[in-house]
């Protein structure tokens, strides 16, 4: 992802080619977390994700001499990771019952953001308005930082169709821009936004249930 100026990037590529360990360590510090997080969008466990990231760094170390600068260095690294993670993810899926239960449509189709039963029906007094409106969450920052809330978020993410999980990971978890996510995942702008919308909506719904249960 384009996080630095092209001139810095040229110097960084040169440093990596020379074998500058400090430059490499800095790059690892910047990207290791994001890469592992993105790998986890494809593979079911942290151990496998770490393998994928290890293989990615190996690909970077071996491939840096051939890097042509047609994309940014970071985009190139993310693409190496995505290739490895997608291949590995397919293999893991064959072995794992949990993902055989996954949805058939990888993009999630045309699902509503909120259960239709939350709204008044066509014969209600105010059709399409909340029948059971959301309420403000109490102390959301502290509560969202708890182990239990994290598990709820990770559980909801694990349930997402793959493309939604990729977009959510890059946009909301890693904070990349829409354009960076589109480039890394090769998506149209509209598609990127639709996937993000579906994914966020589902994580919100899971958190809403969590807050409601905690307050009940």
């Amino acid at each position, binding site marked *: 992802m384009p996080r630095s100026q092209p001139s810095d990037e040229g110097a960084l590529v040169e440093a990596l080619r020379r074998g500058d*360990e400090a430059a490499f360590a800095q790059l690892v510090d910047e990207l290791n977390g994001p890469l592992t997080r993105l790998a986890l969008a494809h593979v079911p466990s942290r151990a496998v994700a770490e393998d994928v*990231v290890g293989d990615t*760094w190996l690909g970077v170390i071996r491939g840096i001499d051939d890097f042509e600068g047609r994309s940014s260095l970071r985009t190139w690294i993310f693409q190496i990771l995505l290739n490895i993670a997608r291949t590995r993810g397919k293999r893991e899926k064959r072995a794992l019952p949990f993902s055989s239960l996954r949805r058939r449509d990888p993009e999630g189709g045309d699902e509503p953001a909120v259960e239709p039963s939350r709204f008044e029906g066509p014969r209600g007094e105010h059709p399409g308005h909340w029948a059971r409106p959301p309420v403000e969450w109490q102390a959301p920052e502290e509560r969202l930082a708890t182990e239990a809330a*994290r598990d709820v*978020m990770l559980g909801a993410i694990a349930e997402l169709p793959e493309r939604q999980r990729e977009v959510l990971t890059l946009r909301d978890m890693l904070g990349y821009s829409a354009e960076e996510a589109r480039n890394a995942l090769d998506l149209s702008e509209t598609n990127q*936004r639709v996937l993000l919308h579906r994914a*966020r909506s589902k994580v919100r719904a899971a958190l809403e249930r969590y807050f409601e249960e905690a307050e009940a």
Partner: protein
Amino acid sequence: MTAPVSEEMNCQQFVELVTDLIEGRLVAGVRLEAEAHLDDCHGCTAYLQQMRHTIAGLRALAASEEFPRTRERAIAVFAELRGGDAAN
């Protein structure tokens, strides 16, 4: 998702526009409708807030994760295969 909404916007329509609203991708007319709807609707105001908290929660979750094992391994592999320029 940015198609103009006919007549008064309802809540079911609003929730489908929330991402476009947060992303700043609504055309002006629809944005005004969405803002007018928010002024009158506590439920949708809470919904929008929940969505913002969700995004912040996801961000904080990712920021708190650490993966030290892969870091050390990657640096060791680099040193082995390409190293030599660490001392300068």
